Each structure stands twice: as C-alpha cells, then as structure tokens.
C-alpha cells in the first residue's frame, strides 16, 4: 500500500514539440482509487508507464510513500500492471501466466495454486487455465491480464483500460469485482478508462486529462457539478453538456435564440457587452409543461432533428437558431421529428464559462450556493 505522489511530472519523447505529459501533479491517499480519463493520446498510458518505471520521466519526480522513485527499476517498485495490449506470455498457459510473478517470488506451490485459482474464479476463467493465450478470445485474454495483476498483492495497481474488450454484461460484472477487490485489498489503484460509467462509479477521484495536461482532479460529483472548464464539462457526463454563447445586456444575458436573467454574482465577473458560455446538461433540460422548476432559467425553442429512444430515457436533438441542443427526457415521450419543442432548465442547473473556457463559478458545488456566497462577500 502506498501514497503515490507525482510532482510536476512531465514526459517529452523527442527533443522538441509538446510533451506527452506536462506538469502532472497528484498526491493520492493510501489505498485510493484514482481514475484517469481523457481523449485518445492525451497521455494516460504514458503517465501509468512513468509510475510503473517503464518510462523515465523527463521532469519532476515520482514518490511512493515519500520515497523518490527515479532510478528504482520497475521490478523493485512492487506494482502490478494490466497493459492496454494485455502483454501475456504467449508460451505459457493461462495458469503459468498468472503464476509467473509468484514463482519468481518463490512463493509456496500450494499457495500459488490457491491464489491463481481464486483469481481465476473471480474472473470466470477457471476452465481456461490450461490454455495458451493464442487459443483465447480478446475478452478472455484481457481477463487473464487482469488475473495476472490481481494474484499479486502489490503496493500499487496500474490498470490501463482493463475492461475495454469485454461485452457490456461482463464489464458490469468485472467492474463490481474490481471494486470489491479494491475494498478488500485497499491497494492504491490507477485506472484508465474511456467509459464514463466506469469512471463515475469506480473512481474515488477522477483525473481528467487533455493533451498531456491535467484539466481537473476531483470526486465524480465535483467533476459533474462544478467542472473547472468547458473541456471537463463536455467530457464528463453523457451525452455531453450543451454550450450556448450569450452576451450581457444590462441585467440580461442575450443569445441568438434564448435569453436569461443575469445571476447577481455574475455581475462583476462579466462586464456589460461581454460574451460568455452558458452550459446546460441534457438531463437538466425539461419540457415546459414539466413543472419541477424552482427558478426558471433558460428557455430554448427549436425543431426536433433526431430522436434516440434508449429505453428508460430518450435523447432528443433540437435545432434552435444556431445551436444544436441535446436533451434527455424520461421514458419515450410522444414526439415526432420536425415538431417544435420548448425546453426549460432550472436556474440552479446552469454553468457559466468565460471566453477563456474557464468556469466563472469557482469551486462551488452549485450555482445557487455560489450566488449566495458571493452575495455575502459583497
């Protein structure tokens, strides 16, 4: 178990150009479950590889339990890693793949057998123990790769998209197993995923990355409720947040296809005539006749372009003047394509971003709270 600390860690592969990772700062708690998310190529794998010691960081330092790790080779870092590409030993059976690290540690044979079998049972691959990796499907290989990591009890787990190749049901099962495992072993874990649900449900804290830079670190709720910037706002939550450009006119925010009362706390952040972005999550837009609003915020009117019924909810795309707005309505509302629809969102559900894409509400869980806070200060 370890506290992992990364201070200004960066990685430049070549001599020139931007780094694959830049100024990465993070300090985990002991036994914390950290999820790394971000678009492809943003540096997640590179970060994991630096923690593992497979890649030397070109800047900053990495500490395990306050101990500087540069110069400590991977095999002495006591970590277990699930590679994005599995990296199974092709000449060994599934059993031997999982037992390899234990054999190297000269652990007692009966214990090895026990541990391997226990892991295989968790992963549902007991019947495959004698097979070679080439005789396995992608999903089975991935579970072997996971098994190879979990038979060990390392200081740190590094899992690079360990469930990406599993079908939806297996993924849900495995997700639960990993969470259970983590609760039992309390090993500090770094987990890379592209799956929103995995990120939100598993992570104690989520690190959102883009182009090598950390965008925000926070609990799932923090990221969802108060994203630091438009990138995080758009990246966390599916479907993505809607953004509408508006301009301040006196006590009003005016857009091409909507207008809105200006929140009092925004007054000194947005000068008269200045533009800003208003963000609304699709699930926070409702039809006008739905009367659950405490303070009516923005009102949007447009023509329905796409209807995607997903069972419990339906996604509806609306073309307002110049924007395309997505909304998520419960059930399967009786709507038709090209029909006019008017949507409303609660005032407290709105997010405001400056033109530099930074959230104007700094670190407040909800706009309304921020408003009252701001009011007190004035």
């Amino acid at each position, binding site marked *: 178990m370890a506290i992992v600390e990364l201070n200004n860690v960066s990685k430049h592969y070549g001599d020139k150009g931007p780094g694959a990772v830049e100024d990465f700062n993070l300090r985990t708690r002991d036994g914390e479950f950290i999820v790394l998310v971000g678009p492809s190529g943003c540096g997640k794998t590179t970060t994991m590889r630096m923690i593992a010691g497979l890649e030397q960081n070109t800047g900053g330092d990495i500490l395990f339990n306050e101990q500087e790790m540069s110069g400590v080779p991977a095999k002495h870092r006591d970590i277990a890693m699930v*590679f994005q590409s*599995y990296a199974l030993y092709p000449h060994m059976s599934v059993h031997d793949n999982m037992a390899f690290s234990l054999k190297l540690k000269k652990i007692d044979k009966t214990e090895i057998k026990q541990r391997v079998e226990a892991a295989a049972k968790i992963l549902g691959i007991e019947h495959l123990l004698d097979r*070679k*990796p080439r005789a396995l499907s992608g999903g089975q290989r991935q579970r072997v790769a996971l098994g190879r990591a979990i038979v060990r009890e390392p200081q740190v787990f590094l899992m690079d998209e360990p469930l990406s190749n599993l079908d939806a049901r297996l993924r849900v099962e495995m997700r639960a197993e990993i969470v259970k495992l983590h609760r039992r072993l309390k090993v500090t874990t770094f987990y890379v995923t592209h799956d929103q649900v995995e990120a939100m449900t598993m992570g104690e804290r989520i690190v959102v990355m883009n182009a090598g830079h950390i965008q925000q670190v926070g609990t799932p709720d923090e990221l969802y409720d108060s994203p630091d910037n438009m990138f995080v706002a758009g990246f966390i939550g599916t479907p993505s947040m809607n953004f509408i450009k508006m301009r301040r006119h006196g006590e009003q925010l005016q857009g091409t296809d909507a207008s809105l009362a200006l929140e009092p706390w925004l007054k000194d952040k947005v000068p008269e005539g200045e533009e800003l972005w208003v963000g609304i999550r699709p699930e926070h837009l409702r039809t006008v006749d739905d009367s659950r609003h405490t303070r009516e915020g923005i009102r949007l009117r447009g023509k329905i372009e796409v209807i995607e019924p997903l069972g419990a909810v339906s996604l509806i795309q609306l073309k307002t003047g110049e924007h395309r707005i997505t909304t998520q309505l419960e059930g399967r509302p009786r709507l038709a394509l090209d029909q006019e629809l008017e949507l409303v969102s609660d005032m407290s559900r709105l997010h405001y971003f400056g033109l530099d894409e930074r959230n104007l509400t700094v670190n407040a869980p909800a706009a309304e709270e921020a408003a009252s806070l701001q009011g007190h200060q004035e």
Partner: protein
Amino acid sequence: MSQSTKPSASRITLGGTLLTLLAYLVAIVMFFPLLWMILTAFKTEQQAMSIVPQFIFTPTWQSFHDAIFQGSAYTHYAWNSLITAVGSTFLGLLLTIPAAYAMAFYPSKRTDFTLVWMVSTKFIPAVGVLIPIFLVFRSSGLLDTRFGLLMLYTSMNMPIMIWMIYSYFKEVPKEIIEAADIDGAGTLQTMLRVILPLALPGLTSTALLVTILAWNESFWSIMITNHNAATLATYIASFRSAEGLYWAKLSAGSVLASAPIIVLGWCAQRQMVRGLTFGAVK
C-alpha cells in the same frame, strides 16, 4: 444450373496441368544429380565409368567400405566436421545471443549502423583475408588445429547469427518484456524464461543454418588444415588423386559427407515453425 454446383476448384485447367508438369520437371532437374550421386555410390568403379548410363545394376557397398576404411578414415574427418560445426555453433550462440539481446532491447543510436557494418564484413571475399589469417594462425600455432578452425567458423558466422537472432528478438513484443519486468523478473530470468522460449524457433533455425554453413565450408578447411583438423570437405577434395577420379568412391564419400546434414535438417524442420508469439498482444 446443375453444372454450377460443381466446385470450380476441381476443374482441371490446361494452365494448371502445365504448371504442375513444369514443377515436376524442375524438381527432377534439381534432384537428378543428387540421385545420380547416390546411385553411383552403389556401383563398382567400372560401372561408374561406363559411358552408357546404367540405371539397373546390382548394388554394392564396396565403395562405402573403401571410403570409410581405406587410407583416409572417414570417421576422423567426420569427427572434425562435427566438432567444428557444432562447436562453432554453440560458441557462436553463446556470444551472439547477449549481443543481439542488447541490440534488440536496448538499442542505441548506432545500433542500425553496427548491424549493417557487421554484415558488411561478409562482403569481403575470403581470399582477401587469407594471407593475414594464415600468418596469424601460423604464428599462434593454430594451423591445422580443430580449435583454430572452430574459432574461424565462429567468427565467420557471427555477423549472420547476430543479424538473425536480432530480428527474432525484435519480434518479441516489447510489452511482454516489460510485463516480465513488472512481474519482478531480472534480466537473466527474463532472458531464460521469456525471451529464449519465445525465440526458440528462430534460434533453432539460426543454429541449423550456421551448422550447415560450417559443415559445408571448404575454403578455410582446405587452406588452413592438413590432416589433423581436416574436415569432410578436405576429405572429398583428397579424392582427386593423381591417377584420376574414382567416381564410385567419390560418390560414396560425398553421400557420407552430406547425409548427416540432410538428416539433421530433416529432423529440425519441425522446430522451424513460426508464429509462436501469436496471442501475446492485441
């Protein structure tokens, strides 16, 4: 419509037939000299010398008997061939595996250049270095010694061994070695338990190839050995006596010289299957 149900593959085309015939023809042309050598080995010298080719005759072991026991003992030369070929292969593997390992997994900026340079040493014709090597061997007392020949064969084959083993090592996905690293394996353990098993087919074919190269080598064997360390190549050459050629005996000797290597190749064929790394990574 019933015709179309016939599988088209079973249809015999003129082009296909011609191609098959051509293939047989080429195979026969290639194989005939070998066959003739084997046949001649079982003939008497008179039969072997006859102008009219004889296909039907009573086979005799006489030539083999002569080749093995008369004067120049086959076993002496065969033993030398075996020692130098197998010995140089083992020594070569011992030296080139670590070299190829370093080049494949810890390459530097000059690795590519070094590889090309090493192979380029093979471009120099052997006669070009004959005199220096001869002189070095003479002054260090290595002439006509098995050890000298073994060293020579080892260094002769090292470039090609490094090149081949390097490319087989390159085929081992880097992540597998990293996985071993993370699993706690040291360099030697990674080498013995992960890389070598994976590269085994490649190592086998490399070993086989250089064994054959060393076995078949005749230039150096003839040049720097006399009798003590002489190999089968020297032995065959010695048949060209002043009284003219003894065809049957020469053939028997040649069969004896090439049989071991052909058998070896046959046995090792199985090992040369590729694609063992399949299934390691996505």
